């Protein structure tokens, strides 16, 4: 019962994040979607990832969105889409059918019990390359933050 309620909330938040006209409201709906996904991940048996998703997805990313929208402006969006909406819905329906055809028979099985979590050991020993990659990504993110914070092109000062 709880899972169905959370699923409904996740999909509702995602739809509202896309449909809302104002960007700031979209960011808030996305934060709600992140929080509900974190709750769903916790119920699936991944508490560590749920905490990280809640703090990063619902916290940090939302702050970044609000900051960027504050700089770029919450302008009105054009009403006409890139491709026609019926074509977009047709593409989505075909993709959902294909993915569902592959996915749903595989997941309709009994769920095994959870062993004791050893995420820390695995991260720092077996998957140390992933941790190195995370370090590189964080460095790239810091550089991108400089791009976000940088002012527009400065005019050259005549001597």
């Amino acid at each position, binding site marked *: 019962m709880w899972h*169905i309620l959370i*699923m409904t909330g*996740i*999909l509702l938040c*995602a739809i509202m994040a*896309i449909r809302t006209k104002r960007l700031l409201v979209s960011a808030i709906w*996305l934060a709600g*979607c*992140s929080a509900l*996904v974190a709750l*769903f*991940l916790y*119920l*699936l*048996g*991944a508490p560590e*990832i749920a905490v990280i*998703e809640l703090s*990063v*997805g619902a916290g940090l990313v939302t702050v*970044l969105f609000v*900051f960027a*929208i504050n700089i*770029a*402006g919450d302008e009105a*969006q054009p009403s006409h*889409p*890139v*491709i026609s*909406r019926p074509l*977009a819905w047709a*593409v*989505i329906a075909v*993709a*959902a059918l294909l*993915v*569902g055809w592959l996915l749903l028979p*595989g*997941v*309709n*099985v009994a*769920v*095994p019990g*959870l*062993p004791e*979590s*050893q995420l820390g050991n*695995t*991260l720092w020993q077996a*998957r140390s390359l*992933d941790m190195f990659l*995370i370090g590189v*990504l*964080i460095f790239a*993110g810091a550089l991108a*933050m400089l*791009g*976000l914070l*940088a002012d*527009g092109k400065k005019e050259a000062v005549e001597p």
Partner: protein
Amino acid sequence: MNISIPVIAGLVILGLLGIGLYALLAVRNLIKIIIALQIMVKGVLVAFILAGRLQGDMVTAQSMALVVIVADTIVAVVGLALAVQIRRHTGKLDTTALTTLRR
């Protein structure tokens, strides 16, 4: 109504991927496109954890999901920085404003 948890998770994955893909196809605002990417990645995240749960290997699934979360955050930061700079240069957040050769 008796639906198993993996089926509900599968529906969440399908829904998030579908909504994100629709927004990528139909929306022209740069920040909305980044929001759509975020929604799709959340579906992928649930898929990783579900696969780990079904295979009984949650540790590997969680470590991969951690990399996905970090990469997704960096993609959002880079995309927002690009959107802000494009807004400063073109005055718009519309993707069609990026076409500078068509006049």
